């Protein structure tokens, strides 16, 4: 009886020790994990979380020209920007801009991708050309288009002249400016979209096409029943990223039009920049930034909700 008791006791102390070692190991692996996360945590905190919180904070204040807070105004900044005609116009322009650029970029890129996926001699050259705009910086591309759009010596107007048409003030005519900026943006985004779509297309198993060939499918039947559905996850990704990018457009606006003429190309990010660094209204600029953030968040959420049903993941 006593022996059994002491055996039980020994067992208990053993279990206790095991428990202690386990606990120690868990703690150690937690610390190790944190050490791996630390660099990105620090970087994110400094360059992302802190500015974000600071922006939310600023959006409730009026500020002086240096950005220091002066008066707490609560929701006033938000109320004001929704009656501000410039901001509302920027909002409308932004949506128009998304509507002009995203569908066209995706359709043109898809077309180029399908062509460039054919097994032909020298196709690599075309793939390089089609994806090359990805390697061009926004600034360089904008300057390049600035010359094309130049009203007197630009290539586009020279062309119109040859055809006997009237020259167009691409970047100065309110009817054309947003269109011109959109064309520039589409051209710039094709490289990235093309590359992603080509990657998606090449990951489709070739035996699906071979099998369809044997069963007697035509080219367009294969395109409609295999390529597009199999590419849908990639298309979904590209569309989401393109919309977010379009919402955040800044560089080409700054170089091509600076928001003009008559605020026709004043997209929301550019309007935020103007509010903060030209008008020195850091409070209301912050409020605009927060509104934009919420808009993008909602758009993306909506897209996932609607898009997910039509996307076929493997």
């Amino acid at each position, binding site marked *: 009886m006593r022996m059994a008791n002491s055996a039980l006791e020994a067992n208990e102390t053993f279990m206790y020790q095991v428990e202690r070692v386990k606990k120690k190991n868990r703690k150690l692996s937690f610390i190790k994990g944190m050490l791996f996360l630390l660099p990105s945590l620090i970087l994110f905190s400094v360059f992302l979380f802190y500015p974000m919180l600071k922006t939310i904070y600023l959006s409730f204040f009026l500020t002086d020209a240096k950005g220091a807070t002066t008066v707490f105004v609560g929701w006033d900044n938000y109320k004001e920007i929704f009656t501000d005609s410039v901001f509302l116009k920027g909002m409308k322009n932004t949506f128009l801009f998304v509507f002009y650029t995203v569908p066209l970029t995706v359709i043109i890129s898809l077309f180029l991708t399908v062509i460039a996926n054919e097994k032909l001699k020298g196709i690599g050259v075309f793939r390089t050309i089609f994806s090359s705009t990805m390697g061009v910086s926004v600034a360089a591309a904008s300057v390049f288009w600035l010359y094309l759009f130049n009203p007197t010596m630009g290539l586009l107007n020279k062309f119109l002249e040859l055809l006997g048409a009237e020259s167009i003030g691409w970047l100065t005519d309110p009817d054309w400016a947003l269109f011109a900026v959109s064309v520039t943006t589409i051209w710039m985004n094709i490289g990235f979209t093309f590359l992603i779509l080509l990657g998606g297309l090449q990951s489709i198993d070739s035996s699906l096409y071979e099998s369809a060939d044997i*069963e007697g499918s035509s080219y367009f039947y294969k395109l409609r029943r295999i390529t597009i559905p199999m590419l849908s996850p990639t298309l979904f990704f590209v569309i989401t990223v393109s919309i977010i990018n379009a919402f955040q457009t800044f560089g080409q606006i700054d170089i091509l039009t600076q928001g003009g003429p008559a605020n026709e190309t004043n997209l929301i990010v550019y309007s935020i920049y103007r509010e903060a660094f030209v008008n020195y209204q850091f409070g209301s600029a912050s409020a605009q930034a927060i509104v934009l953030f919420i808009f993008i968040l909602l758009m993306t959420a909506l897209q996932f909700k609607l898009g997910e049903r039509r996307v076929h993941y493997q």
Partner: protein
Amino acid sequence: MSQVELIDITKSYDKQKDVLNGINLSIEEGEFFVLVGPSGSGKSTLLRMIAGLEEISGGFLKINDQTVNHLPPKERNLSMVFQNYALYPHLTVEQNILFGLKARKVEKREQQIRLMEAAEMLGLTELLKRKPRELSGGQRQRVALGRSVVSHAPLCLMDEPLSNLDAKLRANMRVQIRRLQKQLGLTMIYVTHDQVEAMTMGDRIMVLNEGKIQQVGKPITLYNEPENLFVASFIGSPKMNLGNAAFFADGNHLIIENQLHISIDPDVIMGVPKDRNLKVGIRAEHLFPGESKKDHIHHLEAVNVEQLGNETLIAFEVGSELWTAKWPGQWTIEFGQKVPVQILPQYLLFFDVETGQLIQSADIGKLREVVTI
């Protein structure tokens, strides 16, 4: 009438060395024809050339007496089952099966009739509304077969269709495919690297190695009379035991791997040249247990024993080679034990060392192996 005829077919990529060379072959209507060979032997390439997925570099391919070299796959009137099944992940089983019929614009009613027929035959009726990812490997395999069945094409090509299944399912599907082929009267060309599959399924087999035909014939013929060393060692499991051999000056004694001395009745080896080096082969089941037998007994050292339950595989060291014997029943043998083994000269196959060609096959094997009922 031969359904598929290959006349001097060659294949080369970028005008380099030939991948396939001088393939002459004719496949009869309703035949189950198996192409077998190790990986890289060109068997899949040959199948894809018949399907029209690869260009034919030289020679002629005839289907139903018409040269089809220039025809695209869809005009060759055949169906094909791929190794990975090539099912469309975004379509249901039903849509997958009907994919080809819709592409060919077959009438809606006819589509449904064929679908039901195939689904019944393959036991897919319950699964028609599912997506491929919701199916097991065996079910996917059956859907792939269904696609081929509904096409009503008289010629069916299969490219290693069973290699993604586990062993038990594979044995099951072997029987199903074979029954389907007989039931529908299909001409089947079946590619595999598995010689067991080839032996069990084929009416005729073609062994391919490094782009050249090694032998074409019935499974039993390939087993009993392999035309060369490659076929001898490729067909059969465990593989045929091979060893270097030479005759003594008197011509009545054979010495194998400098170890086994076998006296041979000169009548048995009429056609075998006595004055040069040879390779001899003997099947595992022809190395008999030597207990209670008197003639041709050799004591060999057992280096490994595998118990299979109904039979025992014993590996012996013979010179530099490892020979395997397959004995019926259960044997208790220690590692390193000297075991008496009977090696009868009638069962020996003789090959030319240089060319690898068969000189003489086993006498007794030809007479006794096949039992016809």
